[in-house]
């Protein structure tokens, strides 16, 4: 199939066929990263701007490496170095970048909907690298790739997502994407972190971690932010770790070969015990490796995809 999307904004706007194509392409891309010379000329002459309004190491580096492996030129702009600090609007800044003939703008922003706002106004492709608490489609896609690698499929799996669902764009994109691919997604966390109406995305909800983990094929732990104590979402890290953190003890409720995932950065000893994070079924670093492959796949597909067959 031909990939027709100009932008990658969220999982809701991708079809099952498109997700499958992205993941299949990513598998082929992964092989490039395993070669002694980790570079192909596929996107030579293309310009990719990494436009990050929120601090990010993992995602930005991952996109940067993905662009370079495909021979595209990548340029980074962060909030502190952009003209936003001089009072320029987001739309003006983006139009200026486009006027320099950027082909793809990869954007992270603290406001939900910001990438959509640009996508509507720009001819360049926009890839959402995380917007507010709305979506993080490349994270969901790399998670799906990682699950597929280990389990062969996503269809029919029971996947538990545990933690601060309210503030998690990773959770939203995964719920939407995984249920679309046939998984049974169950959410767990304290009621203060479960947003109203989240079931409408297709997931079920429990306040008991054991229940969510029971029979799970995949357990995805979310990062807990210490600042949330100030808005009364949980009392202490100690209690959070005890009640909602993933320990070896709790892991007994899962299937013996349940995958342990985390989008990072990990708060060791809070949402996940160190021995679980480093345990045999942890695929946390595979997620990072696959992140590069998925981002190569997306850059390739939005820039014309199957017209090039030379990777």
């Amino acid at each position: 199939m031909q990939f027709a999307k100009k932008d990658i904004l969220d999982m809701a706007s991708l079809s099952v066929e498109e997700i499958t194509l992205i993941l299949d392409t990513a598998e082929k891309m992964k092989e490039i990263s395993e070669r002694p010379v980790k570079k192909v000329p596929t996107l030579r002459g293309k310009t990719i701007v990494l436009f990050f309004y929120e601090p990010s190491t993992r995602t930005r580096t991952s996109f940067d490496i993905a662009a370079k492996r495909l021979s595209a030129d990548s340029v980074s702009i962060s909030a502190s170095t952009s003209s936003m600090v001089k009072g320029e609007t987001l739309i003006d800044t983006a139009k200026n970048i486009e006027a320099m003939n950027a082909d793809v703008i990869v954007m992270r922003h603290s406001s939900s909907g910001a990438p959509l706002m640009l996508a509507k106004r720009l001819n360049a492709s926009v890839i959402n690298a995380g917007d507010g608490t709305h979506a993080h489609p490349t994270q969901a896609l790399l998670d799906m790739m990682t699950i597929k690698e280990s389990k062969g499929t996503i269809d029919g799996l029971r996947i538990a997502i545990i933690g601060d669902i309210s503030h998690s764009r990773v959770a939203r994109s995964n719920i939407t994407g995984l249920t679309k691919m046939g998984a049974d997604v169950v959410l767990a966390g304290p009621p203060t972190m479960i947003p109203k109406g989240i079931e409408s995305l297709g997931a079920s909800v429990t306040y008991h971690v054991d229940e969510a983990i029971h029979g799970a094929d995949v357990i995805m732990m979310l990062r807990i932010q210490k600042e949330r104590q100030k808005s009364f979402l949980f009392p202490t890290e100690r209690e959070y770790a005890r009640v909602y953190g993933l320990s070896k003890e709790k892991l007994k409720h899962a299937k013996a070969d349940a995958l342990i995932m985390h989008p990072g950065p990990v708060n060791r000893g809070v949402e996940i015990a160190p021995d679980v994070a480093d345990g045999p079924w942890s695929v946390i670093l595979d997620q990072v490796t696959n992140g590069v492959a998925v981002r190569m796949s997306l850059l390739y597909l939005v820039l014309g995809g199957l017209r090039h067959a030379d990777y």
Partner: protein
Amino acid sequence: MLIISGGRVVDPGNLDGITDILIEDGKIIEIRPEIRNPKSEIIDASGKIVTPGLIDMHVHFREPGHEYKETIETGCMAAAHGGFTTVCTMPNTNPVNDTSQVTEYILKRAAEVNSVRVRPVAAISRGLEGKSLCEYGDLKAAGAVAFSDDGHPVEESQLMRRALEYARGFGLPIISHCEELELVSSGVMNEGEVATRMGLAGIPNAAESVMVMRDIALCELTGSRLHIAHVSTAESVRAIRNAKKRGAPVTAETAPHYFTLTENAVEGYDTHAKMNPPLRSPEDREAVLEGLADGTLDVIVTDHAPHSSLEKEVEFDHAANGIIGLETSVSLSLKLIEKGVLTITGLIEKMSANPARILGLESGLKVGGPADITIIDPDREYVVNADNFRSLSRNTPFDGWNMKGKAVLTMVEGRVVFDELNIG
């Protein structure tokens, strides 16, 4: 001399029938069928509804301070084009209307513009800061008709209590913007499924109703008149209904967007659907409609809040709250008749008689009274085009809507300030 001829004249509690109105020197001279006077100019209102001039008791004109959004002149023109003969301007200008000097300035500008009547609402607290009372006596003498910190809640209960009591001495009501800021937190739209899906921080209904309930308690404690601004939730409607049953001197208003739209309008991160209070759920909209039907909600206002693209073409989180409404209010409100929520008489009560009663303004069509008159064509079909608005701003979610029925002539003291009677 001028005759408005052959229209259905609707003045709640006074008139409803085909009759003529004779006007001279800004006053109504005679009301009876088939007035004939060869020297008079005739306005043929046959097939139209002739009503007392409509009153919008809640608008934001941005003068002084933010004239790029709206001036008193453009605001008055928008009001005239929307069928309003009187508007009450909220005090959140820059400087805030918290002294008689600012009130006088607004009235001086309005007199220069000489379009619709402007009746300023002054601030409850100095600088809208919720710390100390303004000089209500001075403000009333200058022309203020009510007090409100609209845009900001009065957080301190003791200040609110004293404001209600002190205003009573001058016979003026307090208009309360009910919002519990701690519950709003970083919220930018209604809390619920849509906000969750879009990843936008939610504002719960309780952020409004908690404050409505507090203010009703203070209203009952003091026996002073309280008017609740822009009611958006089912809980608020219920609380006001119960308070009225107990005989509390409370009145309330809502706006066309709350009885027309729901939170779904925010889809696509449309900043023209961002306002405070936010658009709510379908159940809340239903409750607001019931409140209008049973009289719990006394008044329809626009909460006309002009903003430029500078405030609206930005990230949803950062966009300013508010939409303009003066030029769409009558058309949207007429839909309530079609839906069976209100009769035409009920609608005119909420858009003229009730706000006049609450604020002590003149309204109604009386011989000897001022000729403030609105003519409505209930059958006029058109498509809203924000580019044609007289307002300086374009922030409306109703651009492109198909409408049936609109104000086609506005008369203030016998002067025609808007006339589209014979177009279209």
